[in-house]
């Protein structure tokens, strides 16, 4: 094992170390080399911006698709009930083109008949 005290820097050595140059100016081309390399990898400049824009477009497209899906689902859910609702609005005996049997009387209220008649007029 060595003695740590023997290894300590002398005052002169400390001065030498502290006077060492702290900075070294790079060549003129290094900055361009690095920036070009980062651009190639899509980190800086136009590619980075276009990547951001692509992300925004994807988000907008996803929102539109979600909205359209909601509309389609809504229509699908509402449509199966539509014939029954229409038949319910018609007077007895006029609902022959629906899947309801004409022999079974459809219970309709007087208000519904009045409302439907007003619509026809």
């Amino acid at each position: 094992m060595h003695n740590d005290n023997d290894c300590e820097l002398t005052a002169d050595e400390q001065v030498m170390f502290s006077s060492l140059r702290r900075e070294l100016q790079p060549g003129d081309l290094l900055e361009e080399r690095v920036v070009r390399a980062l651009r190639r990898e899509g980190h800086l400049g136009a590619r980075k911006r276009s990547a951001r824009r692509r992300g925004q477009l994807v988000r907008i497209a996803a929102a539109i698709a979600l909205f359209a899906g909601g509309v389609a689902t809504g229509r699908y859910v509402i449509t199966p009930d539509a014939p029954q609702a229409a038949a319910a609005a018609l007077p007895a005996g006029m609902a022959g083109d629906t899947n309801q049997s004409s022999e079974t009387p459809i219970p309709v209220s007087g208000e519904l008949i009045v409302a439907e008649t007003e619509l026809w007029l």
Partner: protein
Amino acid sequence: MAISGQVQIPELSRIGEALPAGGSDAALIAAAVSGAEAAFRELFRRHTPHLLQFVTRVLGASSADAEDVVQDTWLRAYPALVTFRNESSFSTWLCSVGLRAALDSIRRGRRHTAGELFDDDASSDPPPTEDRMDLESAIARLAPGYRMVLVLHDVEGFTHEEIGVQLGIAPGTSKAQLFKARRVMRALLTGREKNDA
């Protein structure tokens, strides 16, 4: 030079687009992360001179070789900028990335493994010389394992614990390497190296 607070990308990216020559490191980092080239260039100009000097000393190499390592350092550092926190100054953080790049360069060039760099064998001694030399030249003549520990400790001011973490060695190994590195360095400085070796 320590920066404060976490990186706030959206707010600071606007500052970056305004080319903040006098902006803080944190502002420049956040703007550079969001792709602002002007901010990155400012960050590069601010920190590359010290990084290049550090890498040149660690490699003991020509500035052309060191510039390749500096380029590699920035290519490694840029994607990691988002992970940078204010636990240390940006300059210190960048030098730690540069040290890893330099280590990889040495391993590629000389086919060293991580452990071999810090082995205590005769082949790690510098070539014999009777000429006195200045400190910079003496550092460059040291074996890579000695040189790294000496530069990190005596020039950059890292502790043995920090050096251990950076180089993947025990703090005791760092101390032993520093002791030997200083011994060889003194021999080189006084021209007694031939007799000592």
